[in-house]
């Protein structure tokens, strides 16, 4: 197990920059999740740590030792690929033991370690099979098994669950979490599924277009997103945004298109008449009246999810969503009163940064 220090890493393909000055310190035993939209450079960063991609500028240190110039095989890390990348001509057991055989580990030890990993992952009855005779979920497990048989300095996962169906993904997610608890291994996990990120991570690194947007605990990112990008990316259904103007005075309010004023208990840390964006999570929208300044929202659509109900509403021209567990809203129509509690509001300035 080891810490991983990423200092000022940059990556360009030819003249196209892909990563800009990424700085990240990952503690020993920490589970860090990289999230971000497709093409933002998550895989590239992971592959640079693995040694599969050269470093344009900056330094990567594993356990304090610079590894920029080290071949993948000398970095002592394990990686689980999105495609699983199982060796098709080897049995499950030989797939798992390949790294140990390359290191000339004694036969008896290989047998014990593989048996241990197989037991942990429920692969015992499959050890003699070839990968082509396995289901997607079983292949995924073998890929995990291949990573855990040796005790590497760190585990890298590149969207390991994205090829599985929703149920299996949920199950494997829990298993990965359990494995991490058992092994306590430093792990970097790439995903663009934000539920995976929230449930697995000690810390989440949110990236966009090759730039780290925010690093913090899952609830940090959820409760205090640093900017519009993080606010919109984390959470499902996503945060609602209203563009408008901030008004202070004896009745502070946030005015959105159509002269609709959202009343505020106290002014936000913004100048009077400042253009800004207001954000509120769907589950924080209160579906009830609130004194004389109650807003009336039009019901556009009702989406029952079983777990709760997502209401698609609009205030003037601005659409937004509300989430509720109250089934009486299943038949909601026309207009309903809504209230945005001030303590649940997020404000972002003209540049999109949190204020």
């Amino acid at each position: 197990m080891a810490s991983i220090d990423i200092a000022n890493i940059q990556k360009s393909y030819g003249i196209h920059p892909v990563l800009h000055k990424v700085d990240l310190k990952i503690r020993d035993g920490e589970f860090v999740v990289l999230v971000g939209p497709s093409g933002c450079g998550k895989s590239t960063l992971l592959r640079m740590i693995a040694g599969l991609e050269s470093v344009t500028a900056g330094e990567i240190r594993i356990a304090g030792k610079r590894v920029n110039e080290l071949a993948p095989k000398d970095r002592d890390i394990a990686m689980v690929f999105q495609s699983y990348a199982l060796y098709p001509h080897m049995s499950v057991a030989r797939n798992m033991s390949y790294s140990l055989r390359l290191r000339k580990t004694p036969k008896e030890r290989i047998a014990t370690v593989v048996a241990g990993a197989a037991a942990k992952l429920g692969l015992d009855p499959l050890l003699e099979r070839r990968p082509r005779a396995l289901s997607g979920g079983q292949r995924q497990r073998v890929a995990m098994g291949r990573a855990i048989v040796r005790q590497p300095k760190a585990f890298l996962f590149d969207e390991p669950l994205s090829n599985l169906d929703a149920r299996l993904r949920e199950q494997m997610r829990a298993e990965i979490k359990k494995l991490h608890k058992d092994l306590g291994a430093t792990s970097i996990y790439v995903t663009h599924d934000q539920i995976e990120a929230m449930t697995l991570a000690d810390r989440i690194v949110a990236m966009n277009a090759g730039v780290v947007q925010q690093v913090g605990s899952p609830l940090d990112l959820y409760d205090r997103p640093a900017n519009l990008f993080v606010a919109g990316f984390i959470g499902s259904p996503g945060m609602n945004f209203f563009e408008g103007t901030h008004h202070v005075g004896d009745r502070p309010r946030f005015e959105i298109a159509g002269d609709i004023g959202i009343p505020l208990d106290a002014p936000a840390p913004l100048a009077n008449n400042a253009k800004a964006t207001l954000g509120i999570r769907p589950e924080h929208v209160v579906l009830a009246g609130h004194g004389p300044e109650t807003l009336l929202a039009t019901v556009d659509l009702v989406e029952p999810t079983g777990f709760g109900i997502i209401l698609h509403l609009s205030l003037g021209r601005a659409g937004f969503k509300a989430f509720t567990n109250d089934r009486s809203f299943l038949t909601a129509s026309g207009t309903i009163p809504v209230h945005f509690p001030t303590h649940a509001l997020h404000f972002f300035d003209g540049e999109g940064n949190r204020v």
Partner: protein
Amino acid sequence: MRAKAAFLTVAHRLAILAYIAFALFPLFWLLKVAVTPNDLLYSEGIRLWPSRASLEHFDFVLRHSAFPVFFRNSLIVSGSTAIVVTILASLSGYALSRFRFRGKYWLVTLMLLTQMFPLVMLVAPIFKILSPLGLTNSLTGLVIVYTAFNVPFATFLMQSFFDGIPKDLEEAAMIDGATQFVAFRQIILPLTLPGIAATLGFVFTAAWSELLFSLMLISGNEQATFPVGLLSFVSKFSVDFGQMMAAGVLALIPACLFFLLIQRYLVQGLTAGAVKG
């Protein structure tokens, strides 16, 4: 509906049958002439099978002609060429498929260019090059020439097979602790066996039936390969069709054996299960 389906099946089978008959008929004729005794060859007219078959031509070819020598020479030349070309093409095909290096574009262009010349143009210069080296009239010389001609195409062939193997596999191997070469040998190469078999087969048959250079570079029976040897059945005044065809039938045997041997690897699907489709 059913009648139509049945009709289509029958038509389909008939079409295949017609094609097979068309493709195999020359081979059948080869065999037929080979077993026809000389006195019946011209006297019986055109018949599908002679009234009396005999193995006398085979007997003659094997025991009284230089054919066994031709046969051995061809085996040596084709076998060596196939092996050498396949090794070179595997390495260079892998490089073209996996590495980015300077001049790659021009290298590929150059290799394509070599495939555009009619070989006849090259006979004289090649003779000029090989002659001072003592490589004319030698099987080694032939192997070198055949290798040179076959490597470009075989390289492209191998490259396409390597391209079909996901890059993730060797990256996984490298992370597991293999060097790039070990990953190539232990992971990629075993998965390329169909490609290797196809390349071996292709080069072997190409060398086995090559006539032009063999004819030009080799004089005398000692080093002649079998296509040249076949010509020795054509004399100034007559063509000994029976013996020639018998030799031809015998020459088919190693090619058939060879393909029988490699056909197991020619079937696709070796990489199934590597990555989620």
